Every structure is written in C-alpha cells, then in structure tokens.
C-alpha cells in the first residue's frame, strides 16, 4: 500500500477517468503489473484517488466478508437426483 499523499488539499484528480478504470481493474485482479505500479505511484500524490481506492477496497472486502451464505436445503441434492432419474426414465 502506498504511503499517505503529502498534498491533501487536492480536490479533484486531473486524470479521473483513467484512474477510475485502473482502480477497478486492480481491485478485480485484472490489471497488469505495470498498470498497478503506475497507479500505486499515483496514489502517493493524489488524495482523491487515494480515498477512492480505500473506499472501493473496503466495499469489496465488506461484500466478501459480511454477506452470509445461505445453507443449501438438505433435500435439494436428493430431489435433483430423483428428477434426473425421472427425466431419463420418461425419455425412454
């Protein structure tokens, strides 16, 4: 993770569009190493992008860690197998 940007007065990134794209690719593991390195370097002097990166990363982690998994109903697998058997029998 990059260090905190020195200039924290900047309100808007001049390359916003490009940064949004890089940020998304990096979070989703779709960026190449070079793109990631360039963006991480950029974060060191861009407060708006630094904040956005932190928030988007936190939202992704929130989804991954807090959404509860639903338990599969116990009879579903049996029911599927039964139906498949029925399908085969009725198709003969």
């Amino acid at each position, binding site marked *: 993770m990059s260090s905190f940007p020195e200039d924290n007065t900047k309100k808007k990134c001049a390359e916003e569009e490009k940064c949004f*794209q890089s940020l998304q690719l990096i979070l989703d593991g779709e960026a190449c190493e070079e793109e990631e390195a360039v963006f991480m370097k950029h974060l060191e002097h861009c407060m708006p992008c630094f904040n956005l990166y932190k928030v988007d990363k936190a939202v992704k982690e929130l*989804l991954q860690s*807090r*959404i509860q*998994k639903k338990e599969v*109903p116990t009879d579903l*697998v049996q029911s599927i197998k039964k139906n*498949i058997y029925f399908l085969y029998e009725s198709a003969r």
Partner: protein
Amino acid sequence: MEEEKKTNKERLKGLSKAEKDALFEQEFMPLIDSLYNFAYRLTLDEDDANDLVQETYLKAYRFFDSYEQGTNAKAWLFRILKNSFINEFRKKSKEPSKVDYNEVETFYNSDDVDENITADLRVESIQEMIGDEVANALNALAVDFRTIIILCDLEGFTYEEMSKILDIPIGTVRSRLHRARNLLKEKLKNYATSMGYNK
C-alpha cells in the same frame, strides 16, 4: 473455420447410465452451494431459488453430451441458471422494477456514470456495517447490477467469464460493474448516514 472443440459426446459414449450419472455428479454437484446462493440472491426467495437450481441441473444434464471438456463448469452452470432466471423467473418476479435489458444498457453506457459519491463515504463507516445491512443494500439494486456484483465480488469470476455468463462484451462488463458499484456505494452511504455512522 470453426475452432475444434471436444464435446463430452465421445467421453460418454458406451458408458452406462450409472457411469454417466457418476461423472455428472462428480463434475457439477460440488458447485451446488455457489449455485444455490446465486439463485437466492437473484430471486430473494428460498422456494424460487430451489426451483431455479433444480431446473439448472436438469438442463445441464440434458445438455451434458454437448458440454465441452475443459470448459469452466462453474461458469457454464451459472450461465444456464442466469438464462433460466431471465426466461422464467423474471416473468413472475416480485421485483417491481421491470427494467428491460437494452434500456438498462443504454442507461449505464451514457456519460453520466462517473459521478463520484465516494467523497461522502468513509472507510470507517463501511467497516462498521453488519451483514444484514450490506445484504439489504445489495438486494435493493436492480437485478442486473446486483448480478454483476455477485459474480465479481462474491463469486470471483474474471471479466472474461462474466462476459460469457451474461452474454455481453467485456467493455460492458466493466461499465456495468462500475455503475453497479457506484449505486451500491450510494445505498451504503444513505444507510450509514441514517444510522449515524457517517459522522
């Protein structure tokens, strides 16, 4: 020339029904957990999720011969499930927003998608949220936006896999994901504000 792909047909040739079923179960049953959760997040109803998963497995079984070896089994099943959902469950869905796919696409391919609402959302307030709050925010999104977030963030599919599951170009995967996340952040921000988290 069409690329040569080997379907299951050869592999299954001469196998007994029991052997074929065993292969089917071995390949696809371990994925039932992810499928059921995807179905539930789409329908928001346990019975509907149950029906949708059943139907997905029946279709998969019917097309097991034409399943291409080496295909990503999870993506293949997710695609079948998503198509079944669109074809049948949407008709009787309780969801009030009956947004047409094309309409949605036009909407989020327009230029106004990049408004940045993040400035008002703090990392600390995000981290304070509990599972139900996050699930409610996610469930409040229109189904197309909800779907892409589930596929990407909960199931970890790549852009290429999502493009195949949803039958849309990768560029559209990216723009839809971007739009979906902005909408989700907006919901989270409203929630945080109403709960007094976002001081």
